[in-house]
């Protein structure tokens, strides 16, 4: 007996088996997005296509011809998905990694400052949280600054950081990483403060009856308790780091990185290039967050915390 007959035996709907897994729903959602994207591409590119026809003196263009043409423009308002995919393919697989036109090369530049910034940001966040949890003074004095730091638009402060660091002779990777740090330390601080404070009263009392020192209570109780919180906030911090790295590439007139690709694309109206850089950034963020998810799963499994 095959799965199909089993499925049909149980349910009246032939699609019930397909939709019960994860593959079915994912395919449906992706197809829906694609459909909306294509429809939007046709609709948004039609006015310019009519201009083109007018200039070329073409009349009586069939609808199917119109649709084909709107999906094949060189600088469309909204490029079609397959145009973006082809562009990504050309700039990743067909170009050498060392080439200035390789998307992988640019992703690598952005990735390095993302990771550096994330590392510094996460460490800073953890250290701040430890200070805030253990000292009332730090809690009162530091927390408002931590929060207000995030109310400043990153686009406003990014050039300042670049300029100031440049003035003291720091350039290259670090200034961009600092912007990633600026964005990523915040979720880690907030998450870790919450996590380090999450042990139940009964657990703290237990430590007290053992006459444990603050250091022992930290290592043996607070820190393990905070691990799940750390991973959750690291996921947010990682995505924020990538945004920070890209934003950091914009005001510097950087020649390399996904931000630089976005900037160059918008200078020359290369919408396909912009979209391929955007998709690459999304893919990068997704992979990085998924990677943290995998590490989280392994860590919690080792700690016996996944049931």
């Amino acid at each position, binding site marked *: 007996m095959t799965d199909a007959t089993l499925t049909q035996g149980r349910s009246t709907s032939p699609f019930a088996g397909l939709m019960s897994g994860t593959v079915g729903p994912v395919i449906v959602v992706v197809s829906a997005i694609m459909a909306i994207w294509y429809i939007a591409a046709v609709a948004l590119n039609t006015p310019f296509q009519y201009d083109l026809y007018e200039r070329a003196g073409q009349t009586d263009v069939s609808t199917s011809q119109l649709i084909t043409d709107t999906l094949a423009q060189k600088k469309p308002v909204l490029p079609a998905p397959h145009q973006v995919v082809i562009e990504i393919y050309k700039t990743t697989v067909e170009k050498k990694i060392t080439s200035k036109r390789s998307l992988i090369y640019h992703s690598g530049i952005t990735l390095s400052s993302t990771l550096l910034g994330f590392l510094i940001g996460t460490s800073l966040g953890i250290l701040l949280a430890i200070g805030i949890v253990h000292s009332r003074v730090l809690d009162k004095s530091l927390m408002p600054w931590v929060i207000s730091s995030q109310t400043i638009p990153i686009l406003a402060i990014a050039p300042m950081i670049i300029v100031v660091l440049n003035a003291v002779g720091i350039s290259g990777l670090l200034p961009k990483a600092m912007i990633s740090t600026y964005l990523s330390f915040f979720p880690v601080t907030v998450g870790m403060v919450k996590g380090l404070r999450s042990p*139940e009263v*009964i*657990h703290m*009392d*237990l*430590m*007290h*009856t*053992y*006459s*444990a020192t603050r250091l*022992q209570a930290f290592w*043996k*109780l607070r820190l*393990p308790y905070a*691990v799940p919180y750390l991973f959750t906030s690291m996921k947010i911090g990682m995505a924020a780091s990538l945004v920070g790295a890209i934003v950091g590439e914009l005001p510097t007139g950087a020649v390399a990185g996904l931000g630089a690709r976005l900037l160059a694309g918008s200078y020359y109206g290369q919408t396909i290039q912009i979209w391929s850089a955007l998709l690459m950034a999304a893919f990068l963020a997704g992979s990085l967050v998924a990677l943290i998810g995998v590490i989280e799963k392994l860590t919690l499994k080792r*700690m*016996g*915390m996944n*049931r």
Partner: protein
Amino acid sequence: MTALASAKDTEMVVNKNSASPNRVIDIDNLSLTFETNDGPVHALSDIDLKIDEGDFVSFIGPSGCGKTTLLRVIADLERPTAGSITVNGVSPEEARLNRAYGYVFQAAALYPWRTIARNIALPLEIMGLGKDVQQHRIKKNMELVNLSGFEKKYPWQLSGGMQQRASIARALAVEPDLLLMDEPFGALDEIVRDHLNEQLLQLWAKTNKTVVFVTHSIPEAVFLSTKIVVLCPRPGRIYDIIDSDLPRDRNLDIRETPEFLKIAHRVRDGLRAGHSYED
């Protein structure tokens, strides 16, 4: 005693000594008042209590009578606002720093990321004991609470009763002479509770520790204790102290005997009288 004293006399002296052994806890005129937004709350008022070595003392009373608070004062988890208390002849804080007691909470409070064996190792790690000593004590105390074979399990893989036994093993691993237990079996069903009560008595007989036990179950208090302290609320105070004359070596059948029922009756009377105070 003279040199002519017979063997029998000597025996009597020994008995006399064991009848008035060392004082473990000495509470004198102790009060504890919590300052709250609604005004002061008199959690404990004029508590006088002596507990000797080898006693099994139960605090029983309705909610809010301060029985848990009194236990927490002994453990230095709360500070009294008046009166005096000594544990092993020193202040509760010093006793805590000397690791004089093991404390069993209402919930097992095991760390979910530690196996049972490593949970029991926790206080030993904090005390800075060597690995060999730790292993020895883990093994010994897991045997004592009948948990051998569950060393590598995580807390969530154990039943509530087993978790609570593990937490008792953790308290015993410190090897304290004094065991403080705050309604350790309160969350368990009657059958498991009876079983654990019997095991606890055997444990107490084997180790000759002093136990202070908080409960609001009359049968539990009478079955376990050599001394029952009845508390009543508002303000939390001692209403009655009953020295049980039941034999130390007892099993669950004793609950059907007239002696047992007589003590249970006196406890119930005390609880009722303490309650009628506020009606």
